[in-house]
């Protein structure tokens, strides 16, 4: 599944400015049992720092994910992330999708249903990649592949900093 290539798929990616970070204010009275609804920005904060599999830049810096690419319905416990690969033939699209899924599985409450997809019209094999990323049996099998898991962990490490 992972093809290690000598040449970079996208040798010169466009790098964008990082957006400002939200400062979390603690409420005056802390109610431990209050359930804070999860919003778009919180989801974005979970995934913005994921490292691109082939560049030293984050998915935010490469505009692979933006805040607007996240749809969240906290009441229905549903989130959908639409990502845009940097080039149409990016063979790393599946890895990026897996990174997004793994990060959200680890960060969100288990009641959450997560859908990951490629932005319509931005990838040559969009339907194939989308089907793979949303087949949980294939995802489970992929995550038992230690080589692949290592690549994913490496991409996720900046998000836990």
């Amino acid at each position: 599944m992972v093809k290690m290539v000598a040449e970079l798929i996208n040798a010169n990616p466009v790098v964008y400015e990082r957006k400002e970070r939200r400062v979390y204010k603690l409420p005056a009275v802390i109610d431990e049992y209050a359930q804070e609804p999860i919003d778009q920005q919180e989801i974005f904060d979970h995934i913005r720092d994921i490292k691109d599999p082939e560049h030293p830049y984050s998915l935010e810096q490469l505009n692979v994910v933006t805040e607007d690419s996240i749809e969240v319905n906290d009441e229905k416990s549903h989130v959908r992330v639409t990502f845009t690969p940097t080039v149409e033939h990016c063979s790393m699209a599946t890895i990026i999708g897996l990174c997004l899924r793994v990060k959200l599985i680890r960060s969100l409450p288990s009641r959450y249903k997560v859908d990951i997809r490629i932005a319509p019209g931005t990838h040559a094999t969009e339907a194939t990649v989308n089907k793979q990323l949303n087949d949980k049996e294939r995802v489970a099998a992929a995550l038992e592949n230690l080589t692949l898991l290592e690549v994913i962990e490496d991409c996720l490490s900046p998000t836990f900093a």
Partner: protein
Amino acid sequence: MELGAELREVERLEGHGDRVWSLAWNPAPENCGRAPAMLASCSGDKTVRIWQPTSSGAWDCSAVLEDAHNRTVRSCAWSPNGKLLATASFDSTIAIWEYIGNDFECVATLEGHENEVKSVSWSASGLLLATCGRDKTVWLWEVQPGNEYECVSVLQGHSQDVKMVQWHPNLDILVSVSYDNSIKVWAEDGDSDDWHCVRTLNEASSGHSSTVWALSFNTTGDRMVTCSDDLTLKIWNTGLEDYDSWRHLCTLSGYHDRTIFSVHWSSEGVIASGAADDAMCLFVENQDHSVDEAPYILLLKKEKAHDMDVNSVRWSPKEPSLLASASDDGVIKLWELSQVS
């Protein structure tokens, strides 16, 4: 007709350390230490657990089958005599467990699949075992004396991974369902001993438009139900010897809003489905036979049956109103279906 039914949770079985993928009721638990009932479950935690009622009536885990697989155990199936349990794993092998002297022992390991094995099924006679997996193939194994299993055929035809295989309840006919959205029927050629695909049910034959995850026959084998990522269940008329006449009977849609992973037909004719929307649905044949009426209708929907995806639903062969379900939440539940007036 007034449909009054209630599905009540009667047991909650906890022990697996990861998602539970699949369940199998032992069809002849009396052959396993005279147990009154026995359920096997398999999980992402790489183990298989055996559950049975204790003398007080409460259910308990009586055995943990481990060390045979080093990756997820995706599916399990009991032989018709209840003495053997076959388990299929992502580690590319199938293990055969035999009940010997109060314990389950791994007596054979079947190797051949290139990678993840996803499903296993015993034929009605118990003489053939079918397996399938990510390598797009279906393997047929002949059960021989002395725990020997000989591969008699490798069936190729699916263009993507094969999600599940299931034998017809009475005949040596095998059905497989796949990530390629199709359902294939396999049978032996009358003249030679060759197995081949005798029928493909795809979108052009009113079939599914996305991954087909599971199938189940009714007791007599004249109906089959399939479920899919396209959020529908489909019922097929399979009553005729001539495979070309197997046809789509009806589509049940609008009941689940995420992928339907499992479907099972009870011996009393109730179809259960389990899906990624955490819900289960029960369907029955419509007693109103007028032409305009749907042939199958919803009996009830159990929202929030589990805290996460429902991966497997299985009716007990001994107590037709007892249903078992398994989920990503790591829990197995037993449910009692009762009619209320």
